[in-house]
């Protein structure tokens, strides 16, 4: 616990001049500094102190007051804490009871609960006055992180790097730590921060009619595909490539692969309806009935092909009609 307190004091001393720098520059810088501060492990009490300093900084800039020295700000912060509205005695008693009911760490839990209550009061006051900082909500939502001693050095160094970087672009260690943070907690958990404006839905693209791709588009797409494709790294990728090309069959074996016959069985077998245009008596009808019998037994042709056969015969006999009538 002592280590934590020392590091937290270090962080506060570092945080305050940092906050001074941040407040003096663009609000983006302020944001960055706040986020940098959030990474440092602090108890709830220290965080509250930081919050107070941020608040005071903002008030100072709003009122166009000159920035005091770090010590002066700290004094102000402590004075402000003392001047804060005293909590409801009932709430204090309740907090004490809850803390006593919990198994261990009574004092710490009590102090944390009281800090939480104080924060609630502060937020309500702010809302009444109007113009709450959204970042306050952000910080209140943040859970207290436990930091391993090995990562502390990295964190502090990352914060220092954030200080040095003035363009607002994250340098490598900052980026790495952000990745590690994200991996532990999902990106979309927690309340929306409303830092970025919502992306406007693109209705225009939906209204645009998709024109048929030109030859140049197709060529371009082919070129990209040819450039980006890599030789297969292992046998599995080779087999995938072969399956896509069609060299390898898909497993489990699909007996109807490549067969797009959508017609039902009755369309294959009952072909008499195509014989409407033929004469109902005579050798031709006899012949066509045999043809239909043969076609119905053929599993290899599609319905279209069978209909084509029958239509060809129809045409053929129509052409030969005059010849047949001579006989």
């Amino acid at each position, binding site marked *: 616990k002592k280590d934590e307190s020392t590091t937290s004091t270090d962080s506060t001393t570092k945080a305050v001049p940092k906050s001074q720098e941040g407040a003096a520059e663009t609000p983006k810088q302020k944001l960055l500094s706040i986020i940098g501060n959030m990474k440092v492990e602090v108890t709830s009490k220290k965080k509250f102190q930081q919050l107070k300093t941020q608040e005071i900084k903002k008030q100072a800039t709003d009122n166009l007051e000159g920035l005091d020295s770090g010590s002066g700000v700290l004094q102000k912060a402590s004075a402000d804490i003392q001047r804060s509205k005293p909590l409801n005695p009932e709430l204090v008693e309740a907090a004490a009871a809850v803390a006593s009911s919990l198994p261990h760490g009574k004092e710490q839990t009590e102090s944390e609960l009281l800090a939480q209550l104080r924060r609630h009061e502060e937020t309500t006051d702010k809302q009444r006055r109007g113009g709450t900082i959204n970042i306050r909500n952000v910080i209140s939502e943040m859970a207290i992180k436990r930091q391993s001693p090995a990562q502390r050095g990295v964190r502090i160094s990352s914060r220092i790097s954030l200080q040095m970087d003035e363009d607002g672009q994250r340098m490598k260690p900052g980026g790495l730590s952000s990745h590690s943070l994200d991996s532990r907690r999902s990106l979309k958990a927690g309340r929306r921060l409303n830092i970025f404006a919502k992306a406007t839905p693109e209705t225009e693209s939906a209204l645009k009619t998709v024109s048929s791709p030109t030859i140049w588009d197709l060529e371009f797409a082919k070129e990209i595909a040819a450039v980006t494709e890599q030789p297969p790294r292992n046998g599995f990728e080779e087999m995938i490539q072969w399956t896509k090309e069609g060299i390898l069959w898909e497993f489990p074996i699909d007996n109807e692969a490549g067969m797009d016959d959508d017609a039902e069985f009755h369309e294959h077998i009952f072909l008499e309806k195509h014989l409407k245009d033929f004469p109902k008596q005579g050798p031709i009808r*006899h012949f066509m009935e045999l043809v239909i019998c043969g076609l119905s037994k053929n599993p290899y042709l599609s319905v279209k092909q069978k209909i084509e056969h029958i239509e060809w015969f129809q045409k053929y006999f129509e052409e030969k009609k005059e010849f047949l009538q001579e006989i």
Partner: protein
Amino acid sequence: AAVCWLAFRQVLPSPWASQARSYFVDWRMLRDVKRRKLAYEYADQRLRINAVRKNTILPRELQEVADKEIAALPRDSCPVRIRNRCVLTSRPRGVKRRWRLSRIVFRHFADHAQMSGIQRAMW
């Protein structure tokens, strides 16, 4: 004459084949390829006309007319003229149908262990 100096390279675009072969081993193989293509094109027509010809129900005059019609089709369109040649050497005889290779080529590949599932017989 104009065809002779063209060497063996022929551009025969085949819409159905994914592998477009433009070099053939010799002219006989080329002619065989042409015959196969024509036979494919006229296969349905030949089948239908033959159905008219080879039956006892339709009048004989009609069948004679169908005879003349089928004779009028191009000579290379009949499937009987196709010869199963070796794919690599264009050898007309000694070709195993499963591999489409002549016996000499087959033996060559089998001995070099390039034929899948082929082993020298020993019993």
